[in-house]
């Protein structure tokens, strides 16, 4: 069975990129009931546009409604659920029993149970399935073999995280942010206090001034074939706050991996791993998939993301007659830089930057200003949504 590849998106552009670069479905959060509400750009009209774009490609949009709500949050719930049904979202992702119940009472929306519920066994999967949920997003604290065991005993669809940043705690059971910053981690305000640096004291004596508890990001490349064999229904990438370059790179790599495996043409894992490393990333590990917790899965003394290719622009249009591409700049690049063309549907290619012009045809020696529209020469025909990334020597 071919699993769904499910990608995150924090705005409409990212929805389009994720779907064009190979995701079968995208999950997004609205401004009110999402755990990423803090950064959400999705009003109902934006969600409607995302749904239309996805459905034209015969793909899906899921909307997260997975906050742990207080009473004040529930006042808008019914209207919001009805709006989501009206604009034909393909499913909602919920964590609270009352939200699930209201969605069932008011709508025919497909319901997925969020990882916020930390489902770790088949009995709970069956409970939610028999009470209206079609799919369970499993807790991230499970080994592959535990997932296999659950899959054998449940009728619910299973969704498993395969890539991205992870809560270091069981989801939903952390209120570090509430206590330290008065920002409600379970209502979209998480301040990521688990990624801060702390002093560690033992019996009141300072023993370390650089205690960290953050985990490495998950990268489950080597486990994807096994997860497909188990029959996991959806493979999920995390990262609604990430850039379009990150989303395109990660989605595209996993798309290739899944398709290659199902066509019996799996490449050495390094091929996919190297593709993923082109996006900005923290050090990665296998999370709990292999054998549970270990010090190797923790992140120490790493504060910045690494990447081997720098995202420098997105193609808006291409003039075939003059072989010039209109680009929206994202990061600095200059004449003579080698640029990799990263495209959803063809192998990557490289060009050398010969000239850079402003939209008004002024010659520039470099592209310095984020979001500036610029023109570059390219003998290789480019297409809208192709991404340009600078090759770092």
């Amino acid at each position, binding site marked *: 069975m071919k699993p769904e590849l499910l990608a995150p998106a924090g705005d409409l552009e990212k929805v389009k990129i994720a779907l064009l670069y190979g995701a079968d479905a995208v999950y997004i959060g609205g401004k009110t009931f999402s755990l990423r509400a803090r950064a959400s750009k999705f009003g109902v009209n934006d969600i409607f546009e995302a749904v239309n774009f996805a459905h034209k490609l015969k793909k899906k949009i899921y909307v997260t409604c997975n906050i742990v709500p207080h009473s004040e949050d529930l006042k808008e719930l019914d209207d919001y659920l009805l709006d989501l049904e009206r604009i034909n979202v393909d499913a909602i992702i919920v964590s609270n029993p009352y939200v699930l119940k209201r969605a069932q009472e008011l709508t025919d929306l497909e319901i997925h149970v969020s990882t916020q519920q930390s489902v*770790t066994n088949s009995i709970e999967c069956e409970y939610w399935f028999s009470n209206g949920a079609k799919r369970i997003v499993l807790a991230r604290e499970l080994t592959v073999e535990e997932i296999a065991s659950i899959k054998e005993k449940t009728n619910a669809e299973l969704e498993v995280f395969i890539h991205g940043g992870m809560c270091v705690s*069981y989801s939903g059971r952390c209120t570090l942010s509430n206590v330290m910053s008065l920002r409600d981690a379970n209502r979209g305000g998480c*301040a990521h206090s688990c990624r801060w640096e702390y002093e560690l004291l033992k019996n009141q004596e300072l023993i370390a001034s650089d205690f960290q508890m953050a985990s490495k990001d998950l990268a489950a490349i080597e486990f994807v074939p096994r997860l497909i064999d188990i029959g996991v229904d959806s493979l999920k990438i995390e990262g609604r706050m990430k850039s379009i370059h990150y989303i395109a790179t990660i989605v595209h790599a996993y798309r290739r991996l899944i398709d290659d495996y199902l066509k019996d043409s799996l490449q050495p894992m390094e091929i996919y791993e190297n593709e993923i490393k082109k996006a900005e990333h923290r050090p990665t590990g296998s999370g709990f998939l292999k054998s549970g917790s270990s010090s190797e899965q923790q992140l120490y003394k790493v504060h910045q993301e690494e990447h081997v290719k720098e995202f420098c622009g997105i193609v808006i249009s291409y003039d075939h007659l003059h072989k010039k591409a209109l680009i929206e700049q994202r990061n600095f690049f200059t004449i003579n830089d080698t640029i990799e063309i990263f495209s959803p549907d063809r192998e990557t290619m490289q060009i050398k930057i010969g000239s850079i012009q402003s939209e008004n045809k002024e010659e520039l020696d470099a592209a310095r200003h984020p979001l500036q529209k610029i023109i570059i020469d390219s003998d290789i025909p480019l297409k809208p949504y192709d991404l340009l990334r600078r090759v770092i020597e």
Partner: protein
Amino acid sequence: MKIVVTLKNIEEIPELIHLGADVFLLESNTYTRAAKYPFSLEEIIDIAKTIHKKKKKTYILLNTFIHEQDIEGIRSFLSALDKSKVEAFVCYDFSLIIIAKELNMEQKIIYQPGTMNTHPKDMAIFKDLGIKGITISREITFAEICEFFQENEKLELSLSGHGYQEMFYSKRKLLESFMLSQKKHEFGVIPDAFFQIREKMRPDSYFPIFEDGFGTQIYRGKKLASFDFIEWMEPYIQDFFIERRFISDQEYYASIKAYALKDYVPFTKEYGSEYDTGFFMQKTEKIKGDL
């Protein structure tokens, strides 16, 4: 309102009853994480008999997540304790409700998931599930807690209202992992020591951190006291839990006495500076700048 206390050993029962304890919460050496005084199944059965002879109640704290391989074991555990007439199982994982239902024991479940019981609309769902009650989340305000009291659902409400309050649970062994990575082996023997973390921007806040085989727990820096609010809540709260972790016997006994006698002055004089009122009067924000 019954005062629920954590039991250290069987010899302590008369003293705790004398101080005002109504219910004894026992920790299991199999299904209780961060247990301070864990007991085996056989010990629990014995202790429950003693407690029942004193006309008091026995609850069992089950605060681990149930993974697939735990299911058979927890079924046997619940069945054995059902026969010994334990009055309630205080459960962190939702799946324990379902397992208890299979065993026709759901009426003994108090659902205490820490962060998750944040509004009263869920009460009807838990009532339909047939459980005994729920513990209200620690992360909501007193005004929000009072909304629970206005619901007509016949579902018992409880509160963890005193002592160190957990704010984080991870399956990861964060202390051991850090020490391994830093080669700080000399700081081992983790369960026997009192560890705290301190964030550099909050130098006055020390947060206790505890690790055992189930993972790592972090607690709020200040202990919670409900003295200013308990009078208003008492008519609606069936069980009031007094947390024991990191607290001396002397201080623990003083807290039980304070709530039993409704005389909070001596306790406050002695220990008040280490306590605050948690989120009772403190809202949290969803988006930075909301407050």
